[in-house]
């Protein structure tokens, strides 16, 4: 289980209805179903991940977020989750709007591009960072909209999106003190609970 997913679980009420955008192999939804008894629906486009998620007994719909989410009625889910997909969609701002139209609250996680290692890599080498965490070259990466903690909060401000809570994951798992004190510099992954 990825670390950001263990963090966001506590924001999801037991027995609630959850839409997971880009649910992958369904590991997180399954855990929510077992530990939180949620009624979940996952969206995914990768055929093999869809089959794995279905094998877990989950409800999965093959749908590309970039083509819109207009088929989901307003306020039809308690929580809409999008973990590590914001940077991979064509129109992150529209997806955020849709998330908060469909769900009463949204949970978003994304890699913080302003982490000091990224800055150091870019600053010293003058090239787009490639790391264990972001293992792609610039020309073949699914991550087409990298942003920083500050960028995301500025977008929320601009769009009237309320940040109900945030949590930061740093380099070390134990004590994310630095990451929470200076997130834009030390957070590897940013986690937000948002609503209208």
């Amino acid at each position, binding site marked *: 289980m990825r670390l950001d997913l263990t963090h966001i679980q506590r924001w999801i009420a037991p027995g609630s209805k959850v839409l997971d955008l880009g649910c992958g192999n369904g590991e997180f939804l399954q855990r929510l179903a077992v530990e939180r008894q949620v*009624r979940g*629906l996952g969206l995914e486009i990768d*055929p093999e991940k*869809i*089959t*794995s998620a*279905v*094998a877990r*007994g*989950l*409800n*999965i*719909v*093959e*749908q590309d977020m970039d083509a819109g989410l207009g*088929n*989901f*009625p307003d306020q*039809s889910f308690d929580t809409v989750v999008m973990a590590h997909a914001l940077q991979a969609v064509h129109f992150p701002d529209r997806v955020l709007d849709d998330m908060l139209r469909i769900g009463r609250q949204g949970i978003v996680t994304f890699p913080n591009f302003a982490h000091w290692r990224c800055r150091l890599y870019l600053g010293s080498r003058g090239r787009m960072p490639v790391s264990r965490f972001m293992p792609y070259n610039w020309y073949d990466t699914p991550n087409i909209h990298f942003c920083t903690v500050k960028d995301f909060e500025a977008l929320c401000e601009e769009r009237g999106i309320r940040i109900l809570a945030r949590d930061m994951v740093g380099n070390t798992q134990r004590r994310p003190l630095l990451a929470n004190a200076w997130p834009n510099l030390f957070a590897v992954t940013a986690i937000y609970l948002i609503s209208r």
Partner: protein
Amino acid sequence: MKTSSVGIVTPQRARFDEPLALACGRVLTAYELVYETYGTLNSARSNAVLVCHALSGHHHAAGYHSAEDRKPGWWDECIGPGKPIDTNHFFVVSLNNLGGCHGSTGPTSINPATGAPWGPDFPSLRVRDWVHSQARLADRLGIDCWAAVVGGSLGGMQAMRWALLYPTRLRHCVVIASAMRLSAQNIAFNEIARQAIQADPGFADGHYLARNTVPAKGLALARMVGHITYLSDDAMADKFGRDLRSGSLELGGEEPAEFQVQSYLRYQGNQFSGSFDANTYILMTQALDFFDLAREYGDDPVAAFREASCAFLVLSFSTDWRFSPSRSREIVDALIAADRPVTYAEIEANEGHDAFLMPIPRYLALFGAYMQRVRGAC
């Protein structure tokens, strides 16, 4: 015979003497349904799966009728030990629908009122008539609730109708390459097929059995048209291209050239017209045309699906233009809006509508994964 086959199967017959009131207003006083079963019904009677057939299908969905059979049942790719509908775990029931021509009561049966074959006087049927008759077969077999009702194409329409008419009698509804109603284009193709049959002098207004004629040409033509719509452009290109079966296209020669696709279509048409009843074909295409899932729910599919209480698996195929992925998306969107559990995938496949009968790896894997979930609750 493949090792993963259900092996030799024997059709069974159930007679029903309780009159069946039909959607058209007429009553069928008695009727018979011929069916096959594969696998074993468990003691809780909770592992039964109903397979609904498509336009030209029948009860023989899996296995062989004899050791000499060259071809297995029509859905042998999906039914059998270790296959998506795993007969090591499920008890599968597959029947020939009412109005069919493979043993169940239909236009070729004797009308008890006249002592002659029904022919064109056989009552017009709707999908719901099949569902009601299937429910009686379930009663007869002691099945209160199907683990799943499964169907492709017209079979998918029956599965969806089951979910609305008998919501407590199925836990899962599997709808493959289907639609909530046909498009005008679809109805148009069916009309060409019917016209081809009716224009054949051998059809004799449907009384060909009494007159001892056969509308073979018309039925073959109907099948040829249908067959083209079940394949994709790509599939036909792959299979035949512009290959010639005989003759040549060289300049300076008058020898007539025949394309492979021509002889293939003729073969398919002739095979079909030798084994299918023309009145049944008309009846089945009309049931297909008339089906409209949401008609009596104010034309609102969301309201319709609110009647259902089962979970749904919906599958479509990328090159299927007869029942295109967007028709399946309409089903999925309505289910999402009705807050019903739904799983959906569009399978990349070259084979057009016929893909639902083919061993496409992703299709079998996903279908199998879903059926494992169905099994978990048995």
